[in-house]
C-alpha cells in the first residue's frame, strides 16, 4: 500500500482546514503581533534603549515570531485532532490501513504548516516596524521548524487525552502562554535577579526563543547546542509517547 498518499491526504486536509478558516487562524496573530510591535517595540521600546547591543524592537522580534509559532502549531493539532475524535471521523482513519506513524506525521505536519505560515506572517508584520536581517539562516530555520514540530506533538498528546473542549484550552492558557511570556520574549534573563535566573533556566521555551534569537540577530542567553539537544530530545520523547498512545488506542478506541 502507498502510505505517502494517506500521509498527503491527511496533510492537505489539515492545510485546507486552517486556510478555509483564515480569519480565525491567520488574521488574529497578524493583528496581535502588530499591536505588540507598536506598543512594546515602538512606544515603550524607544525609551528602553539597547539590549545586548541591539535595539529593543530588534530584540523582541524573534521571541514574538517564535511565540506565534508555538501557540499556532500547538492549537492547530489539538483542536483538529480533538474535533476529529469528537465528531468521530477518527473512525475513518482507524478503519483504514493507515499506520499510526502516518496518522501522527499527517497531523503534526499540518501543525508545522500552520506554525510556519503564521511565523512567516508575523515576520512580515515585523518588517513594517524594523528591518532585522537574519544572521544565521540555518540555525533560525532549524529552530523554527523544530519548535513547531515539538509543539505540534504536544498538541497531539493533549488532544488524545482531552475529553471536552475545555481540556484543549487548559494547557495553552495556563501553561504555554505563561511559559512563553516567561521565556524571555520581552527581556533577557540576564536582567533577572539571581534566583529568578535559575528558575527561568528550567523553562524549555527560554532555550528555543534564545536559539532563534541567536539565529536572527546573533544574541542569546543560552548555549545553542544545549537548546538543540533539549528540543531534539523532547521531540524524540513526545514522538515515542504519541505512537505508544496510538498503539494502545488510549483516548481514541473503546
Amino acid at each position, binding site marked *: 500500500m502507498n502510505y505517502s*498518499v*494517506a500521509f498527503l*491526504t*491527511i496533510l492537505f486536509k489539515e492545510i485546507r482546514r486552517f486556510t478555509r478558516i483564515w480569519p480565525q487562524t491567520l488574521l488574529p496573530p497578524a493583528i496581535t503581533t502588530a499591536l505588540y510591535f507598536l506598543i512594546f517595540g515602538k512606544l515603550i521600546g524607544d525609551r528602553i534603549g539597547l539590549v545586548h547591543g541591539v535595539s529593543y524592537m530588534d530584540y523582541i522580534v524573534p521571541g514574538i515570531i517564535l511565540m506565534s509559532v508555538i501557540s499556532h502549531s500547538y492549537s492547530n493539532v489539538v483542536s483538529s485532532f480533538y474535533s476529529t475524535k469528537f465528531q468521530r471521523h477518527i*473512525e475513518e482513519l*482507524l478503519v*483504514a*490501513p493507515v499506520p499510526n506513524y502516518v496518522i501522527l506525521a499527517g497531523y503534526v505536519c499540518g501543525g508545522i504548516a500552520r506554525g510556519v505560515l503564521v511565523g512567516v506572517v508575523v515576520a512580515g508584520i515585523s518588517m513594517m516596524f524594523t528591518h532585522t536581517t537574519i544572521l544565521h539562516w540555518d540555525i533560525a530555520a532549524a529552530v523554527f521548524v523544530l519548535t513547531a514540530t515539538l509543539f505540534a506533538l504536544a498538541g497531539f498528546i493533549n488532544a488524545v487525552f482531552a475529553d471536552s473542549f475545555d481540556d484543549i484550552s487548559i494547557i495553552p492558557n495556563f501553561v504555554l502562554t505563561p511559559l512563553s511570556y516567561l521565556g524571555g520574549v520581552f527581556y533577557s534573563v540576564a536582567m533577572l535577579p539571581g534566583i529568578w535566573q535559575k528558575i527561568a533556566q528550567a523553562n524549555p521555551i527560554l532555550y528555543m526563543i534564545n536559539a532563534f534569537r541567536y539565529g536572527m540577530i546573533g544574541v542569546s542567553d543560552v548555549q545553542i547546542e544545549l537548546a538543540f539537544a533539549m528540543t531534539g530530545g523532547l521531540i524524540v520523547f513526545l514522538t515515542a509517547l504519541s505512537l505508544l498512545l496510538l498503539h494502545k488506542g488510549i483516548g481514541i478506541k473503546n
Partner: protein
Amino acid sequence: MTALSIQNLKKTYNNGFVALKGVDLDVQRGDFFALLGPNGAGKSTLIGIISSLVNKTSGLVSIFGHDLDKDNVAAKTCIGVVPQEVNFNQFETSMSVVMNQAGYYGIPRKQALRRTEQCLRQMELWDKRDVVSRRLSGGMKRRLMIARAMVHSPRLLILDEPTAGVDIEIRRSMWEMMQEVNKQGTTIILTTHYLEEAESLCRNIAIINNGQIIEKSAMSSLLSRLHTDHFVLDIARPLSLAPIIAGYDIVLNADTVLDVAVPKSHGLNRLFQALSEQHIEVLSLRNKSNRLEQLFLDLVQ
C-alpha cells in the same frame, strides 16, 4: 472460502462489563448475512472489533484469510464499514468525504476521482457532490456513508443499521442498492432492528444475545421452525364477537377485522371452511407481523 472467521472472541471493557463471551462465527464469501440481537447484546462491540475500532481482549479474527493482528493492512483493505451513526466530517463536501477515504486507502488521486464518481453515482449522490455534507438529508447521509465505505472496492461490507431512521421509500431504494452490491460479489454483513429487512435481504443469520451467538443458520431453515403463522383477515360484514373455531386463536380487532393465529398443522383451508360455515365472507388476507420477529423474540427471551 470464508469472508470472515471469528474464533473464541472475548471482550471485557475497563469497567468490568463483559460484552463478548467467546464468539465463534464464520461468514462465507458472497453471503448476505444478518447479525441480529437486542440492544446491548454485543453487536456493536463485535463490529467494532472487526473494524479495528475496539480492542479485543482475546480471540482471533481473520478476514479473507488475513489475520487482523498479524496481517492488519491486508485484512483492513478487505473491509468497508458503514456505522450506525454519522461519522464523517460534516464541514466537508460529499466529494471530499469520499475522496479522503480513498486517500486513506492509498488510492492515487486520478483513480480515486474515478471511484468516487462511480460510488456517488451508484448511491445517487453525484448531483450533491459539492454540497457540504451537513446539509444533506438523513437518507443522503446514510448513502454517503455507503459510498465512502465502497470507494476502495471492499470484499466485505459491514452495514451497521444502515436504514435506521430513514423513511420507507428510501429504505426500499437502499435495499435495492445493497442487493445490487451483493450481486456484484461483495459479501455483506447487516445488522438491523428491522427484522423484515433481514428476512427480505439475508440468506444466513446469526443472533447474538448477552455476548454469545445463540443461533446461527440459514434464514430459510430458521423460518421453517415457526409453528404458527399470524394473519389479519378483512371481512365483508361487521361482527360483534369473534367467531370460535377449534384449533385457531381468533381475536376481533375491529368489527370487520380478525387477527388469526394459524397453527401450521391446521393450515388455512380448514379456517376458510369454518368461516364459510358461519357465513363470514373474507375479503382479503395479509401477514400480521413478519415471521422472523416472532422467532427472534422467542430466542432472546
